């Protein structure tokens, strides 16, 4: 069925099977937790931020394929990005998975993250795809307590 394979694309399944940047960096200086009380999905996100630049980002936790792959691919996308670019990516990703048109303008492109466009056809799964992203934002804003996408 085409719509199912829109959601479960090979790249997403691959990141689910072999999540990248899984674990904890030695000296994280930003940290936050994300939690979906209804699903039980849970993520801890660690960042190493140097001035305005994200040097390292890693995660730990449990969740469905969509939330795990989203966290894994987010960590790849954020490494080396500026804090400003991270926020732009957050906005673009959010628009992508909620089916809003792209804004255009300056800033980093979604690139491989576009694989999540199929999520917009599964409204119940938007929160899975955005959990890691909300957690990242909370970490950068210095809110270590658990955020929720419910």
């Amino acid at each position, binding site marked *: 069925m085409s719509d*199912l394979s829109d959601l*479960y694309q090979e790249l997403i399944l691959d990141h*689910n099977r072999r999540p990248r940047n899984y674990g904890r960096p030695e000296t994280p200086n930003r940290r936050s937790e994300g939690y979906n009380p*209804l699903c*039980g*999905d*849970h993520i801890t996100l660690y960042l190493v931020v140097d001035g305005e630049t994200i040097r390292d980002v890693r995660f730990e936790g449990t969740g*469905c394929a*969509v939330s795990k792959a989203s966290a894994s691919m987010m960590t790849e996308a954020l490494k080396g990005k500026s804090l400003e670019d991270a926020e732009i990516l957050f906005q673009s990703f959010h628009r992508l998975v909620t089916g809003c048109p792209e804004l255009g303008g300056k800033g980093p492109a979604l690139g491989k993250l576009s694989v999540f466009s199929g999520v917009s056809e*599964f409204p119940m799964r938007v929160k899975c795809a955005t959990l890691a992203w909300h957690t990242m934002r909370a970490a950068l804003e210095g809110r270590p307590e658990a955020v929720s996408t419910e």
Partner: protein
Amino acid sequence: MHPPHRIPVFPPQEAAPHAAAFDVHEIRSHFPVLHQSVRGKPLVYLDNAATTHKPRAVIDAVSRFYERDNSNVHRGLHALSERATKSFEDARHKVQQFIGAAESCEIVFTRGTTEGINLVAQTYGRRHVGPGDEVLITTMEHHSNIVPWQLLCEENGATLRVVPISDSGELLLEEYERMLGPRTRLVALVHLSNALGTINPVRRMADAARAYGIPVLVDGAQAVAHFPVDVRDLGADFYAFSGHKMFGPTGIGVLYGRRALLEEMPPWQAGGDMISSVTFEKSSWNRLPYKFEAGTPNIAGAIGLGAAVDWLEGVDRDAAAAHEDDLTRYAMSAIGSIPGVRLIGTAREKSSVVSFVITGIHPHDVGSILDREGIAIRAGHHCTQPLMNRYDLPATTRVSPALYNTRDEIDAAVRALHKVIEIFR
């Protein structure tokens, strides 16, 4: 603390002898919602532990009330109010008969199971549970039979104690009996577990509690739809359930309480209908059950629940229970044989709930894929997070059949589960 990895194999059985007498297709014809396509496939609804569908008789009773009798109860002098009051009180009487209560004043209408449990915690509980006392619950409780007691215990300096379970999902009764003591003020337990399907031996447990004079509250949310319940036979002092899980409307439920207990309990919510007289200095309370029914009740809901009781009593309930047991065993056998599947909840006494996990595949992904096949199931912690922790799982997938489901529908779910595994391979 880990459950066995062995998958119990239930021999695929021929349909039970009752099944011939039980015409599931006739039963299905009463449920308009079942006859539809979802995402281009015939709807397969296997999420009955979350809520059940409504037979035509219930839908009609609710519309008829609004079309013909709509009025407030217990106060009007006019014909419509008289009719509304009669239908509302008739529904109470039907519920009384349905669960074997001694008197209809022991039937308190609530919004649902959760409200019933909260009512007991906030009235009986506040009055009787003090510092150093204990409330006893079990590992397999729904959050609605945990949190009200947790709040009460925190507020009053009491301790919440939890009866452990075996790996198969059965209560450890010897532990339970050891945990009962002079400080136990109440036992609260589920009749049929919404996450495991375990049917608890309520009568034996109530007998043990009675030896200490401890009242027992039973969460019957799942049980009432599946087999006949007699509260006196069970020895339940309180029995709470919801209309919507037994083919009735949402927003209506029942708290049964033994009259002697209800009489001495203080009122809960205050307002109209629950008083006998009010002055600015002092009010006095209405008689049972109105003392606990402040404000205009869910009249249409109660009437719909009465219609659901009538409808259920028109069904051969033993045959229906045998049909559900057959579906449960059939699903456990078929789903349990899928490679990588581990069944969660394999108690000897169980019904209507088949919970499982698939190695390496999260239940939410299972749920989304089944949904695309028109199959409605539940994935998550089922509002039983402490139970999930007991099994060291974040969530399970749950198939919960009702009397209108068929073996063909279980087969469709199994085919879709194979598809899930195919996608994730």
